[in-house]
């Protein structure tokens, strides 16, 4: 990764977190669900940016990516089902 | 195992409650498939062992080019169809675990009773507000030939409320209300019909209760809501 990209990722991190907070102030009373969705998307995009660039997953052999993808797959199953089990 | 559970608890000729009928029917399917599969596969194993045992001759073995995946494929296909058939039967029996649709009608023909599990016993709250604890001579009393809807929860820890002779069981969990239904078609008192099926501490083994099935009029006068008043 070139240094410029690193600064790009960092800038994105800062902008994303500020946006999260902004969205929170805008929507927390108006539309809580929309706020949750938007913040979740932003957080996920931040995480993805770090994994792809700072952790250089994009340059690793495909098999390594499995170590990141498999647990996330399992955890999603846990999350969806546990919330469904609340009835 | 048909009627086995029942025979255990009752004596004499009896009718089969609907939940038990559904359960027994389903169990018959599973026993048919399950015992059948066990017999066939273990039979195959024994046959092969006898057929291909080391007879001490040193005849060269035939080549195994394909490693015999065809027969594996065929037998697996057979077992998949059996599993699918069994699962289909399960889905066809879901009435046992769904709240009957009648119970959401108005007027509600179902009898609603609240069950509270605690360390160590059960407490029942009847439609007229009467509250009873399980003891030797205070059974869970229900009218015959009615759909009974139990609303189950717990005061302290995880319990599981089961009446195995009626093929029903549901967990009693603090902070949560679970329902189960049954319709007992036989009059009489069944001792120790109710048991706790989840370890809940030292008294788990003695967390039992009796079930008493009485005519509707008797039940109504003692536990029912007084509709004439």
């Amino acid at each position, binding site marked *: *990764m070139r240094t410029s990209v690193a600064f790009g*990722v960092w800038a994105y*991190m800062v902008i994303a977190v500020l946006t999260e*907070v902004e969205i*929170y102030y805008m929507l927390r009373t108006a539309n809580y669900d929309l706020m949750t969705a938007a913040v979740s998307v932003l*957080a996920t995009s*931040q*995480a993805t940016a*770090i994994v792809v660039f700072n*952790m250089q997953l994009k340059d690793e*052999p495909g*098999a*390594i990516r499995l*170590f990141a993808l498999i*647990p996330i*797959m399992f*955890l999603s199953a*846990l999350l969806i*089902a*546990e*919330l469904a*089990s*609340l009835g | 195992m048909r009627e086995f559970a029942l025979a255990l608890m009752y004596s004499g000729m009896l009718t089969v409650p609907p939940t038990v009928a559904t359960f027994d029917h*389903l*169990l018959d399917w599973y026993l048919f498939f*399950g015992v059948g599969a066990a017999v066939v596969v273990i039979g195959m*194993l024994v046959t*092969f062992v006898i057929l*291909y*045992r*080391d007879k001490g001759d040193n005849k060269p*073995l035939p080549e195994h080019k394909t*490693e*015999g*995946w065809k*027969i594996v494929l065929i037998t*697996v296909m057979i077992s*998949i169809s059996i599993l*699918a058939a069994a*699962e289909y039967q*399960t889905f066809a029996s*879901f009435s046992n*675990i*769904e709240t009957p649709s009648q119970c959401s009608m108005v007027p509600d023909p179902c009898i609603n009773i609240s069950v509270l599990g605690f360390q160590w016993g059960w407490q029942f709250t009847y439609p007229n507000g009467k509250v009873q604890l399980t003891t030797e001579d205070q059974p869970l009393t229900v009218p015959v030939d009615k759909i009974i809807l139990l609303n189950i929860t717990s005061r302290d*820890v*995880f319990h599981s409320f089961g009446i195995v*002779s009626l*093929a*029903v*069981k*549901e*967990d009693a969990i*603090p902070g949560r209300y*679970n329902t189960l239904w049954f319709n007992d078609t036989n009059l009489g008192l069944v001792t*120790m019909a109710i048991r706790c*099926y989840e*370890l809940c*501490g*030292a008294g*788990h083994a003695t967390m039992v209760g009796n079930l008493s099935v009485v005519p509707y009029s008797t039940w109504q006068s003692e536990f029912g809501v007084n509709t004439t008043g």
Partner: protein
Amino acid sequence: MLYFFTSLYFGIIGAILALLMRVQLSVPNNFFLSAYYYDQAVTMHGLIMIFWFLSPIAIGLANYFVPLQIGAKDLAFPRLNAMSYWLYLSGGIMAVLSFFVPGGSADAGWTNYQPLAVLTPGSGTTLVYLGLVLLAASITLGSINFVVSIIWLRAPGMSLDKLPMFTWFILFTIIAMLFAFPTLIAAFALASSDRILGTVFFTSTQIQPSILWDNLFWFFGHPEVYIVLLPGFGIIANIVPQFTGRPLAAKNAILVATALVVLPLSFGVWMHHMFLTGIPVDLQGAFSIATIAISIPFDVITLSFVESMIRGRVKLLTPMLFVLGAVVLFIIGGITGVFLSSPVLDRVFRGSYFVVAHFHYVMVGAAIFSIFAGIYYWIPRFTGRMYNERLGKIHFVISFIGFNVLYFPMNFLFDMPRRIFTYPNIGNWALLNGIASVGAFIFAGAQTLLAANLLYTWFRGPPSPPNPWGSPDLEWKSQPVLTPSPTAPTDTSESPPAGGWIGQLATPASPATETHAAGAEHGEAHYSSRPIQLSFGAMIFLMGAAFYPGILAIGLMVIGGALFAVALGGWARDDLRHKFAPPPEEEGDRWPFQGVSKMKLGMWVFLSSEIVLFGSFLAAYIFIRGAAVTFPAPGSIHDIPLGTLNTIILATSGLTMFLAIQAIRQGDRRRLMQWMSVTFMLGSTFMGIKISEWVNLGSSGFTLSAPYPFNLAASAYYIIVGLHGAHVTAGLIMMVYLMKKTKDGEYTKESHEAIENFGLYWAFIDIVWCFIFPLFYLL
């Protein structure tokens, strides 16, 4: 091999508990054991057998034979292996000690259903829980080691399609462990913190704690049952061809079915343990189908085993007999499992002896019988001597009969609740229980024959031919040292015989230290003692924590913590002095991971388990948020601007860490040092702000003893954010160490692995915070 014998030792403890229970249940209305003792016996029997006997005995075999099978000298990280063993032992010591503290041991069943288990008084339960956490840590380290070894240490030419089946199945087991055990750590850490610190994860009834526990426990628990089973299947698949004289039928189908169906789906069926908890009917249906689906690969495996005899020449020697026994018992156990997968039938079977029969058929029948097969099969390789065939056959026959006398009657006890300490004389309960108890003694008695045969082989067995079974696998190409002298100590479970296997345990370290130690009197010289110190330090610290509060507790915590710190410092010092220089990396077959270094692979595997660990904690938190009817409004507790600032600080430290890496990539050690220092400062600032936030929150009444729902929010916040903080702190400590090494002129353009890997870790910490911040501050 130390693993192997230690697990046998725990197996004996578990068996004694089982026999006590069978004595108690042999007749109705018995009072040999009271409920108090029975509940402890039933709980600890399950925990010890599953966690300290079954899995470790398989890992013990794997420890010895996997390196041999792949043509490696040892596992990838020898010291990690030692660490894993000592953590396992420490956890076990805590579990066994728990019987002797006031209030006794854990007694809520091996499943530890909540809230019963957190409400049990006494420190015994806490000891067991923290022991489990140590065990899980041990397993996680072990998994990393095995994954890396199997992927990375294969000898040239050992391509994946040549990998022996045992190694394949160990790989599957290990992968399941890697993803399952972090959830166990999370679950038991939450429960322990309830018990020690007074958090309210499982005591606050407003959030359906039982359901939270069930989800966490069984999300781990179902994969765990396969973890127990798969090594056994690996043994079967590995050894069947040697006894049938023909290849395994549809071998590749077995591998594909296990890798692509069993492993992924094992994390998607756990709710079949929750059919009765009142989950929606559709969810029950979905998990019923998933459960049926996961039984299909097992059909493939079983039928392949059965059909591998067709047109072969079946030699009925002891290992093969145990294989056949295991297959028969698995068929029965698997089919009863299919019965249980029906939510409708489960309304009768759940919580009854039918379930007990089911899982003993699979766990004892299939798993232990096949491990016995493996023991008989490999003992010639291990000792250079042959076991006694006739005694082996008798052992099999009596075990098989005893097993069925013990467990088959339980299939008919479908109306008897499990885990009741006594029962009235109704129906056929007395008869069936009586038979089962007789079977228990037959089965247990038969195992003395195994012990006798092992001892006989070890000391008196006739020398075995180099490859008695005509196996093509690599382990038979090298030769064991014949175990010498019948005068060696016979107490195999505890004291190691001189020479023998001591070289195998713990850490053979580098060739250099090996030669250095060759003349030394003590086996200890072979390996670093740091892993023992670290493990025992952790153990003593956690014991103190279990007894908390009190002077004794604090004393233990101080001693344990000190020992831990000293050991850690010592470890670092050893490294700085290159005491254990890593052996040069050799060529090998590494597909599909060519070009990835061993350390980096290890780091990724570790991060993979960390994802599950944090994921489980966050999943618990999200569940709590979903279940809680009332929860403090966002913004009402945490200082959002401060949190935002801290988030930006951490993100910036990610950037500076990257610049540090970039510097050393260009070989600029001075800039590396500068950027690392900046990163360190930013990280410390983050922690400083964190601590000041905590102090403020604590003094403003946001504590664990606050009224509901603030205590709940506080529990979640302090534990989860605290865990993240602990990771940051660990990162800071590592940074100090790396900076010291940099100052010593360690890293160069070509060689700076450690820095790169630390960069991965630091980035991961940043990622976790990306989720923690919105979850706790904004939502």
